[in-house]
């Protein structure tokens, strides 16, 4: 029944809607609003913003940034253009994202947290094998029209946008890596159906394009429980390793987050976490309306003063076999990372 699908679809997209706590005024240029009305809107927004401020959300400090790299990064024009904008397409090839050459330098420009102001929040010049960047970008498929398989949790992105600046001697090719799941990357002439944001975010974080060999799974990502793990786990882990599993079975993605990175994730996704948390019923039963993309995950917690712990379970409720439950800050971070899962799984 189309009516049932309508209800389910609208409900599924509900979490993407802005919340009152995020509601902020927009600069209006198209009409004059009476000053008293403007004043009351400010009052409304201040009141609505109190809770937002109380969450402690603050601008994100880029993980890596160098002066020269940031100088290479342009200011973006308008918020609406962030996703697919490139500063210059004059040297962009028409049939692939980049030419088939090894770049002389690659700079990643980050515009984190959808600040809307268009200035780069950081930039990093990549080290390592730059030919790998060319290889990866040339593998990006052309966009196909007539269909879009976009995740329901598109809003679960953190709205970070990246621009990849590839220098080939004096020639520069720019490639966008949009924060939206629903868009591919483009160089301004060639549009790809592949979104390079995940790779760009990882390269920005680690300063290298291909970091997969550096972060191989500890042991395996099989469904298992550490028998020494406590039923509830202390929160003061020094690092957390997450194995996200997805369908079909046997494929997984692993990320390891050090303490500082966990803190950063915490800041960036505080609001989204709250939204997800609000959807987890008080009795911690698994909600049934979340995307089925991540079917389970393991969380490895490393502690400085006690044995490491492993929790396995459904990421939506973090309850594993044996009744293990993540609590406190660790649970919060796990939820945050689950919010990120649709971004990382591809």
């Amino acid at each position, binding site marked *: 029944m*189309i009516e049932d699908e309508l209800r389910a679809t609208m409900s599924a997209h*509900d979490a993407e809607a802005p*919340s009152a706590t995020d509601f902020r*005024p927009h600069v209006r240029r198209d009409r004059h609003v009476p000053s008293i009305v403007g004043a009351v809107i400010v009052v409304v927004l201040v009141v*609505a913003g109190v809770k937002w401020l109380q969450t402690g959300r603050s601008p994100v400090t880029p993980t890596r940034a160098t002066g020269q790299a940031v100088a290479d990064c342009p200011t973006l024009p308008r918020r609406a253009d962030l996703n697919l904008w490139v500063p210059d397409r004059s040297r962009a090839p028409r049939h692939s994202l980049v030419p088939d050459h090894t770049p002389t330098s690659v700079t990643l420009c980050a515009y984190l947290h959808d600040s809307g102001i268009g200035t780069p929040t950081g930039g990093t010049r990549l080290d390592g094998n730059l030919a790998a960047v060319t290889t990866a970008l040339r593998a990006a498929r052309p966009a196909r029209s*007539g269909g*879009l398989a976009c995740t329901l949790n598109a809003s679960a992105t953190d709205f970070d946008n990246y621009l990849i600046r590839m220098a080939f001697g004096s020639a520069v090719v720019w490639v966008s890596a949009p924060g939206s799941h629903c868009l591919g990357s483009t160089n301004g002439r060639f549009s790809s159906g592949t979104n390079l944001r995940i790779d760009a975010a990882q390269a920005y974080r680690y300063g290298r394009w291909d970091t997969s060999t550096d972060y191989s799974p500890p042991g395996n990502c099989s469904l298992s429980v550490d028998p020494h793990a406590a039923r509830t786990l202390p929160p003061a882990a020094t690092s957390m390793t997450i194995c996200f599993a997805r369908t079909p079975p046997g494929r997984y993605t692993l990320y390891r987050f050090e303490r500082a990175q966990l803190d950063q994730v915490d800041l960036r996704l505080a609001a989204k976490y709250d939204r997800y948390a609000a959807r987890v019923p008080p009795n911690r039963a698994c909600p049934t309306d979340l995307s089925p993309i991540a079917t389970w995950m393991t969380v490895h917690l490393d502690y400085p003063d006690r044995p490491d712990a492993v929790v396995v379970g459904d990421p939506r409720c973090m309850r594993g076999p044996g009744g293990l439950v993540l609590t406190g800050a660790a649970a919060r971070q796990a939820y945050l990372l689950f919010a990120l899962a649709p971004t990382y799984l591809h």
Partner: protein
Amino acid sequence: MQLDEVIADLMRTSGDRLLRLAYQLCHDRAAAEDLVQEALTRVYGSWLRRAPAVDNREAYVRRAVVNEYLRRRRLRSASEVVTDEVPDRGTDGFDSRVVEHDEVWRALALLPARQRAVMVLRYYEDLPDREIAALIGAKEATVRSLALRALESLRVSHRVEERS
């Protein structure tokens, strides 16, 4: 209670609900916020002239949101282009239910404004046709007609997606 307090209180209690409704109509977060902001501005002007009744403030603002949405669609600037082509393809292999939801979501976005409003009010807000008619300023029969046409369009879109 002062009027600005009334509106602030309304946003505290009903802000999320209004923003979700706006988002269902616009499919765009920024546009949804704009819509609610504009509706609040209009409501404020109206309530300055006549004090709001206590029992139906949210309904009043909800109506303002829907009307503002319809008004904007009528006045849509030349810079907006309606297209049935999605920009790019994301990733393959997701659960079919996810893709199916997405097809319906996209088809909804292509409906004319009044049909879309009726779909949202009927299947998201679960309002009876009588209330929808009052909200959009139309007869009940018109609402039924709009709903029929919208559902037919969605069914056709769905069949096309299935074939392709």
